[in-house]
């Protein structure tokens, strides 16, 4: 449906009333603007956005700059300029978004650096790890069991073992070093 001269005058009258605070006229005006925006947006490529999304953006934009309408000038060119501007902005956003998307056949599981890809060599021998933990001094073994195997927090591990948080940190650090040495032999 095209908006003719009569429609133009009605819309301009509604806008004049809206500018002086007539809420009923403003609601009626917004209801007339929305289909115009949707109709214009349907003719354009909008990517993942719908004409309804653009129309809502237009409604918010019209609301924020409604004081720029000059009652001495035509209303439709005013609103169409805003609709056009918001559509172009929507297209720009869509293009920017698509530029940031990288299509890959197989998504990488880790970063490309070697030290992040240690899983490639497999989880190792669990029995060897169990033996290495058993060979640790009692304090270090307890720290490893509580913090790494049971995954308790430092506070919880300190309460369970009777060791201080500082002592637990030292014990687990030394235990990790000992395990690394034992497993790399």
């Amino acid at each position, binding site marked *: 449906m095209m908006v003719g001269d009569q429609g133009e005058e009605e819309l301009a009258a509604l806008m004049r009333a*809206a*500018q*002086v*605070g007539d*809420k*009923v006229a*403003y*609601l009626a005006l*917004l*209801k007339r603007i*929305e289909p115009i925006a949707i109709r214009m947006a349907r003719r354009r490529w909008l990517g993942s956005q719908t004409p*309804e999304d653009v*129309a*809502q*953006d237009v*409604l*918010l*934009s019209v*609301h*924020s*700059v*409604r*004081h*720029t*309408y*000059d*009652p001495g*000038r*035509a209303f*439709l*060119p*005013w*609103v*169409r*300029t*805003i609709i056009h*501007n918001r559509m172009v*902005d929507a297209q720009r956003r869509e293009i920017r978004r698509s530029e940031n998307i990288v299509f890959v056949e197989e998504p990488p599981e880790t970063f490309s650096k070697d030290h992040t890809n240690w899983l490639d060599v497999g989880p190792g021998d669990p029995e060897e790890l169990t033996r290495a933990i058993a060979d640790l001094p009692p304090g270090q073994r307890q720290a490893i069991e509580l913090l790494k195997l049971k995954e308790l927090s430092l506070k919880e591990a300190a309460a369970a073992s009777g060791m201080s948080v500082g002592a637990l940190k030292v014990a687990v650090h030394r235990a990790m070093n000992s395990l690394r040495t034992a497993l790399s032999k």
Partner: protein
Amino acid sequence: MDSAELMRALADEAQPVRRLRSPFARMAIWFLISIFWVALVVLFKGVRPDLTAKLVDARWMLEVLAALATSLMAATAAFCTVVPGRPKWEHAMPLLPASVWLGVLAVGCYQAWRQSGDLVAQITPDWACFPGIVMTGIGPAIVMVAMLRRGAPLSPRLSIALGALAAAALAEVGLRLFHQQDASIMVLVWQGGTVCLLSAVAGLSGRSFLRWKLKSPIGI
């Protein structure tokens, strides 16, 4: 987000608005505020001693008036760009006075070339122009940005570039009142160059100054 709900919420919070004045009226307001700043800078720097002689020099007067007209037309055009639905030709309003301004300088350069034969040799460093224009133009530029932000940010780069041209051209008028440099090639390179550079740089950063301020009343 439901459009019907959005429209109801927008209508509910709608208060009477203060309409934007016409671009010409806004240009007049901007000019009156800006000229105060420019006058202050000129007084602070001290008017050039040969100003009375310059005021009866037709070429000098034409050049300064063309710069002033460029400033006023650029300001009007800038204010037109933030009003939706206005004709596009308004954006080109400063072209005519700017052509006259550049034309007067070009004629001066041509005459200097006819006399000396080597125009490039006349170009010497004149570093006072850049800070002079920046200092004189900063006040008008701030007022311009504040006024442009009241409008619709339809083409932020163009609006800010035109606004910067208005401020820089007005600053150039002020500079001509306290800076004794009348060789056309020097005015063209240093003062014209500064005006163009500032307008271009400001234009590129237009989106930082002007953007849509959308606030949904239903929190979306």
